C-alpha cells in the first residue's frame, strides 16, 4: 500500500512565497486533479512533489520516507513525471526514449535485459506507440510525442504518476485517449495519479478527487462534487459557471459563462422569456450590463432556470416538464408588469410554454418595448401547429423588434435604455439629432420584413 502525504508544505522562489499550508494525503487508486487559475501554484506543487523544487517548509512522504532524503534513482523507481512540454529536439527514436524509463532499474554498467525490453514493449503497446518505435521523436506529432513520454513514464513502473498539464497542444481524440489510459492505469495498476489539468471538464470526467488552489493555498479539496461547485469556481476563477451532472458520462460538467464585468447597476428591469438554455448567455450579458433581469415562466431543472439561480435572477417557475398553468401565467404577467423591456429568445414553443407568448402579447399592447430574437426561424421551432407563429406575427404588428442574433441585443437594449433615461430626465430638452440617432438605433426598420 503506497501513499503520498504532503504535510505543511511551503514553497518559495527566492523570498517569494509560491505555495503555503499545503496538506494533502493521497492513496492508491486516487486520480487527483490539481486545479486552479494561472499562477495559483499548481505546477510548483507538482515540482515540489517530484523533487525538482525543495519546499521551504514541510515534508512530502512517499510511504514513510521523505522523498528529499531518497536517492534520485530510488525515487525514480517509484515516481514518474510527464512534464508539461517535452522539449526533445533530438533524433532519438521513440524506443530510445522509452528505454530511458528503465534507467532507474538498471545499474550503471548494465545493458538492457530482455525483461527490460518486454516492459518497454508493453508500455509502448499500451500507449499505441510501438508502431513508430523506430521513428525519430522529433518527427512525431504532438500527440504521438506525448504518448511516447507517457510510455517512458510507464516503463519506469512507477507507483506514483505525476502529470503536468499533459493535454496541452493535444486534439480531442488524443486528450480522451490519454485520459482514458491514465484512468485505466490508475484503476487497474493502483497507481496514484496527480495531474495538473486546466480543463475543468476533463478533470471532472476523469479524476476521482481534486484540489482547487487559490492564492498559493488549497481553497477546496476532496471529492469532485465538493470541489467543483459554482460557488468555488466563482470565487477561484471569478467566472460564473453552471455545473451539471451529465446523464451521458455520469460526471459533472461545467459550462463557464464569460467573466463578470463590473458595470454600475441600471435602474431598469428586463424580463426574459426563454428556456432550454436559449436564455443563458443573454441573461448573463444583461446582468453584466447592470439590468435588473427577471425571467419566466421557466420549468425547474431547465438550463436557463439553473442559470437564473446562479445569477440570482428572480423567476416565475413551473414544475419540471409541466405545462404552464393559468396561475403561473398570471404570476409571470405580474412580474412582467414591472419590466421596461421584454426579450423573447429563440426558444422552441409547444403547448406547454405557449402562455408565455400570450403574456408577451398582452404586455406589448400596454406599450412595453419588446425584442424578439429570431435566430432560428419560428417555423422550425413551432410545435403548436402555427399558433406560436401567429402570436409572433401579432407581436410584430404591435411593434416588436426582431433581431437575428443575440449578440446584437445588449447594444440595442442599452440604446433603448439610454433614450428612456433621456426622456425621463427632460422630455423637451433632447436635441433633435440625439432623438434621430436613438430612433435609428432602437428601431432598425430594415430588419422588418
Amino acid at each position: 500500500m503506497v501513499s503520498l502525504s504532503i504535510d505543511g508544505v511551503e514553497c518559495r522562489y527566492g523570498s517569494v512565497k509560491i505555495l503555503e499550508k499545503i496538506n494533502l494525503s493521497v492513496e492508491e487508486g486516487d486520480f487527483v486533479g490539481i486545479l486552479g487559475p494561472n499562477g495559483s501554484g499548481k505546477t510548483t506543487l507538482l515540482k515540489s512533489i517530484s523533487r525538482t523544487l525543495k519546499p521551504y517548509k514541510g515534508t512530502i512522504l512517499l510511504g514513510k520516507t521523505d522523498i528529499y532524503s531518497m536517492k534520485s534513482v530510488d525515487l525514480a523507481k517509484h515516481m514518474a513525471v510527464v512534464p508539461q512540454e517535452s522539449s526533445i529536439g533530438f533524433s532519438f527514436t521513440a524506443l530510445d526514449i522509452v528505454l530511458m524509463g528503465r534507467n532507474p532499474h538498471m545499474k550503471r554498467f548494465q545493458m538492457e535485459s530482455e525483461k527490460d525490453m518486454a516492459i518497454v514493449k508493453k508500455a509502448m503497446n499500451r500507449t499505441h506507440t510501438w508502431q513508430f518505435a523506430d521513428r525519430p521523436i522529433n518527427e512525431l506529432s504532438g500527440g504521438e510525442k506525448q504518448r511516447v513520454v507517457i510510455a517512458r513514464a510507464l516503463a519506469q513502473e512507477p507507483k506514483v504518476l505525476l502529470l503536468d498539464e499533459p493535454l496541452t497542444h493535444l486534439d480531442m481524440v488524443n486528450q480522451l485517449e490519454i485520459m482514458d489510459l491514465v484512468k485505466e492505469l490508475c484503476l487497474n495498476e493502483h497507481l496514484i495519479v496527480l495531474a495538473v489539468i486546466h480543463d475543468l471538464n476533463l478533470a471532472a470526467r476523469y479524476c476521482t478527487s481534486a484540489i482547487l488552489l487559490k492564492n498559493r493555498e488549497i481553497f477546496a479539496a476532496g471529492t469532485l462534487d465538493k470541489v467543483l461547485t459554482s460557488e468555488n469556481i466563482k470565487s477561484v476563477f471569478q467566472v460564473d459557471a453552471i455545473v451539471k451532472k451529465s446523464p451521458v458520462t455520469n460526471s459533472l460538467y461545467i459550462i463557464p459563462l464569460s467573466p463578470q464585468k463590473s458595470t454600475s447597476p441600471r435602474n431598469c428591469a428586463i424580463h426574459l422569456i426563454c428556456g432550454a438554455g436559449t436564455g443563458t448567455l443573454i441573461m448573463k450579458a444583461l446582468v453584466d450590463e447592470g439590468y435588473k433581469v427577471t425571467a419566466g415562466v421557466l420549468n425547474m431543472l431547465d438550463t436557463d432556470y439553473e442559470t437564473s439561480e446562479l445569477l440570482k435572477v428572480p423567476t416565475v417557475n413551473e414544475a419540471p416538464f409541466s405545462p404552464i398553468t393559468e396561475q403561473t401565467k398570471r404570476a409571470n404577467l405580474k412580474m412582467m408588469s414591472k419590466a421596461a423591456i421584454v426579450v423573447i429568445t429563440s426558444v422552441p414553443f409547444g403547448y406547454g410554454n405557449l402562455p408565455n407568448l400570450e403574456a408577451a402579447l398582452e404586455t406589448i399592447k400596454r406599450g412595453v418595448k419588446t425584442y424578439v430574437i429570431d435566430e432560428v426561424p419560428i417555423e422550425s421551432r413551432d410545435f403548436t401547429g402555427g399558433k406560436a407563429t401567429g402570436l409572433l406575427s401579432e407581436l410584430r404588428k404591435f411593434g416588436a423588434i426582431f433581431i437575428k442574433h443575440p449578440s446584437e441585443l445588449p447594444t440595442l437594449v442599452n440604446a433603448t435604455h439610454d433614450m428612456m433615461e433621456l426622456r425621463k430626465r427632460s422630455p423637451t430638452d433632447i436635441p433633435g439629432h440625439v432623438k434621430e440617432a436613438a430612433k435609428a438605433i432602437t428601431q432598425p426598420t430594415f430588419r422588418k420584413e
Partner: protein
Amino acid sequence: MLIFALVVVIIFCLNIGFAPISFSDILAILGKQIPFLNGRINLSTVSSVNQVIILQIRLPRVLAGAVVGAGLAASGVMYQGVFRNPMADSFLLGASAGAYLGYTLAIIYSSFLFLWLGLGLYQIVAFIGAAFAVSIVYSLARVGNKVQVTTLLLAGLVMNIFFLAIQNLFALRYSTLPGLAGIVTWLAGGFTNITWIDIIAVFPVVLFGIVIGYFFTKDLNMLAMGDDTAQHLGVNTERVRQALLLLGSLITAAVVCISGIIGFVGLIIPHLTRLVIGPDHRILLPTSVIVGAIFLILCDALARVATGVSELPVGVITAIIGTPVFIYLLRRRKTSYSL
C-alpha cells in the same frame, strides 16, 4: 571500419614529411615492431636513418596527433553534453587555457617541487588549472538550472584571455628557463619535439578519461532531455555533471601538456559526428574519439607540408577549419541545443 580508416591514415601520414620514405619501407619498419611478424621482415634494404625518422620522429608525432585528437573530441562530447550546448569545447570554455597556465607554472616551479613526478606533475597541475577554469565558467554561465549560451561563451572567452594573460606573464618572465623556450609559440599548439615519453605519459590518462566517460553516456542521453526529466529518470544530475566536467578537464590537461592549445577540435568533431550518426552518446563518444584522432593526424600532416618551407603549428590549421564551423553553429541555433 573507422578503426581501419584510422590505421590507414596513420600509415599515410607517416609518409608525409621532408625526407621521402616509401610506403613499403614504412610498412616494413612498422611490421618489424610487431611480435610474430618481425621474423619474416627483412629491414636490410631500409636505411637506418629512415628507420629512426619513422620510429623516433614521425610515429610518435602521428600517434600524438591521434591521442590528442581523440582526447579533445572526447572532452568536447562531454562538455557539450553537460552544457547541453554544441558551442562547448575545451578551448572555448577556457579549460585549455587553464591547463596551459597550470602547465607553465608547473614547469617554472618544478625545480622547487617534486621533480621526480616529471610529466605526471605537469599534468596534475595542468588538471587543476583546467578544472579551475571550467568550474569558474560553469558557475558564471549557470543561471538557476539553465546555462545560457551567450553567458557561457562570454565567460569562456574572458577566462581564456585571463588565463593566457597570466600564462604569458610567467612565460616571458621566465623565458630563459630551458623548458619554456618554445612555450610562447605554443599558443597555437602543435607537435614539434614529441617523443615516446610524451605519449606514454598522456595516453593512459586520455584512455582512462574516455573509458570512465563512456559509463556516463547513458546519463548524458538523459541530460539531453533536460535537467528535470533526467532527474525524474533517476539521474543524479549534479553529480554526473561534476564527474564529467572533471573527466573533460583531466583529458584536456593531459593533452595540453604535450600539444599546447589546439582549438576547435572538440567543437567540430562531436558536432559533425552527431550530424551523421545521431545524438546517442553511447555511439557518439567512441565515434567522435576515432574521428577526432583521424582529423587531427590529417591536420598535423597538412601543417607539416602546407607552407613547404617550415612547419605550421597544427592549431593554425584547426582554427582555419574550425572558425567557419563555429560561425555556422552560432548563426544556425542561437539558443537551443538541438539538431
